[in-house]
């Protein structure tokens, strides 16, 4: 027994330092990025940015993008891309608009039907990718154009010539499910906090921030659930395995096809959730909704530590990636910088993230 214990230590392996252990976490880069960006804006931006209302201001776009980004990250870990996710926002928005306005369905039917419709298209994307063996990049690029075009054609068809469908807010007004998908949550709590002076309020006594926009709650909840699934369930293991090596996963009994199709359905559903939230919020839907979001979602996932080759990444990383995104988009308005620096900043972040991820991957696999 003692001999066995002795042999348990290999003299050639040094103990890992804490730094090395941290380096192995895919989300490290994104967390570091949040810290850097925060420091940058603390130094350059108006102090209003980090008040409660300032934070809500940048968290709202971060949340909308993040919901897409987390789904994109899971799909990317599973080894595929979905470039149709932005167009899907427009398409699902149109479908939702038609259900609520043209058909007058209550949300309890309109939302599941919209989701089901989107999931079906997602499943179709996945099936085409699996059946043809073509890269998902090209298959969903086709989807990007088809869905964007279908949104335009469809909107004109259902509105009689306009590319905007109005009247969604009136249609869902008073629906018991509406508070779940629009407006602010915890308004009572925020009102009370304002009344006792913990948070800022207007002279009339109403709080400056009426509550937490619901999309932020969805964003946080989805990040938590996605992380739990990835790290702590068999399904999560299947996602990593499928993306890491499809053939190896298949040979080990992982239902690779099911995993991939489900992930495509997931991104489509995430897109329709964003569509539903933003369409109710705006009260109308148009064909440009979600424009370029597919690329932003992928950038979010990459900043969050996902490898383009699949099999590695994290949902919590995409969560922080989206926050970086929101901070930079909105944060620049609080500074003296020209707004248009945004895209330069974004491209730079992406490049940095990809290089960084590559180094990390080599560390993890011990590649030399």
């Amino acid at each position, binding site marked *: 027994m003692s001999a*066995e214990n002795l*042999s*348990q*230590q*290999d003299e050639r*392996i040094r103990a*890992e330092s804490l730094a090395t252990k941290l380096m192995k976490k895919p989300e490290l880069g994104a967390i570091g990025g949040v810290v850097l960006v925060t420091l940058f804006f603390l130094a350059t931006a108006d102090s209003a940015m980090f008040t409660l209302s300032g934070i809500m201001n940048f968290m709202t776009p971060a949340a909308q993008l993040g919901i897409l980004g987390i789904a994109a990250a899971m799909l990317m870990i599973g080894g595929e891309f979905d470039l149709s996710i932005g167009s899907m926002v427009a398409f699902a928005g149109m479908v939702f608009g038609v259900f609520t306005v043209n058909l007058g369905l209550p949300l309890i039917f309109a939302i599941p039907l919209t989701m089901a419709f989107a999931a079906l298209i997602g499943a179709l994307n996945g099936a085409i990718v699996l059946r043809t063996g073509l890269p998902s990049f090209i298959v969903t690029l086709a989807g990007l154009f088809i869905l964007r075009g279908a949104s335009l054609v469809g909107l004109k068809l259902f509105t009689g010539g306009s590319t905007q469908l109005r009247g969604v807010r009136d249609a869902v007004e008073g629906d018991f499910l509406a508070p779940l998908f629009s407006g602010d949550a915890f308004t009572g709590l925020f009102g009370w906090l304002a009344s006792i002076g913990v948070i800022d309020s207007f002279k009339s006594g109403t709080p400056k921030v009426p509550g937490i926009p619901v999309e932020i709650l969805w964003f946080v909840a989805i990040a938590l659930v996605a992380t*739990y699934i990835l790290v*702590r*369930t*068999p399904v*999560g*293991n*299947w996602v*990593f*395995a499928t993306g*890491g*090596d499809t*053939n*190896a*996963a298949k*040979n*080990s*009994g*992982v239902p690779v096809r099911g995993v991939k199709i489900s992930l495509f359905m997931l991104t489509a559903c995430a897109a329709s959730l964003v569509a539903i939230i933003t369409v109710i919020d705006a009260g109308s839907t148009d064909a440009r909704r979600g424009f370029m979001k597919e690329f932003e979602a992928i950038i979010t996932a990459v900043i969050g530590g996902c*490898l383009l080759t699949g*099999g*590695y990444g994290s949902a919590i990383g995409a969560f922080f990636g989206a926050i970086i995104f929101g901070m930079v988009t909105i944060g620049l308005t609080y500074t003296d910088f020209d707004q248009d620096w945004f895209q330069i900043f974004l491209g730079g972040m992406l490049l940095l993230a990809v290089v960084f991820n590559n180094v990390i*991957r080599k560390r*993890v*696999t*011990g*590649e030399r």
Partner: protein
Amino acid sequence: MTQPIIHMESIKKHFGNVIALNGVTFDVTPGECHCLLGDNGAGKSTFIKTMSGVHKPTAGEIFFEGKPLSFDSPREAMEAGIATVFQDLAMIPLMSVTRNFFMGREPTKGRGLTKRLDIDRANEITMEEMRKMGINLRAPDQAVGTLSGGERQTVAIARAVYFGAKVLILDEPTSALGVRQTSNVLSTIARVREQGVGVVFISHNVRHAMAVGDRFTVLNRGQTLGTAVKGEITSAELQDLMAGGQELAQLEGSLGGTI
């Protein structure tokens, strides 16, 4: 002689007008290492894929523990106890040893919505099984990419044995390994055999086969050239059989017997 775990009788496999296997008979008994030798293109891969349920034979019968059986999928064969370690090892370098070990067969705890990976137990089992095979992992969350080729092979074998393999098919496990790693893998095979598992060892390296094999079957152009028991055949004879005899004899002249 004990009853074979799996017995393949006159297996034929045609792909269109290509005859990949033309009547191969092969069996393996518990605790035996049966080597399947053959040169590239001899039909070794097709044969083991038939045995592991990937291909259905065009003709011929498969008896599993005495009963005729036909596998519809690799999964069925796996559940019956036929585990195959392919050359790609079915290992994912970016994932931890534990996650690879339990890939597709994750242990869970809890029920319903709280059903989750039992990561502690998975880690424990992985460390324990690897220790049994003579490999000490730094940590169970060590990525497989950091292991050497021989260690990866051992993880794959340990995994198959842990999940109740009765027949373990190893597809050229030593072909890409160095001397020391090869001997580690060969000793792992010996260890597995002692546990009563029937090992099918595919190789084109006669020396590796001679080191662990109990019986040797040579495959050439889709046909078996006969089965020999250890001690009844020399490695030179096996070598000749594999290459189809005469061709190699010619080569040997010019190379001075270096093969």
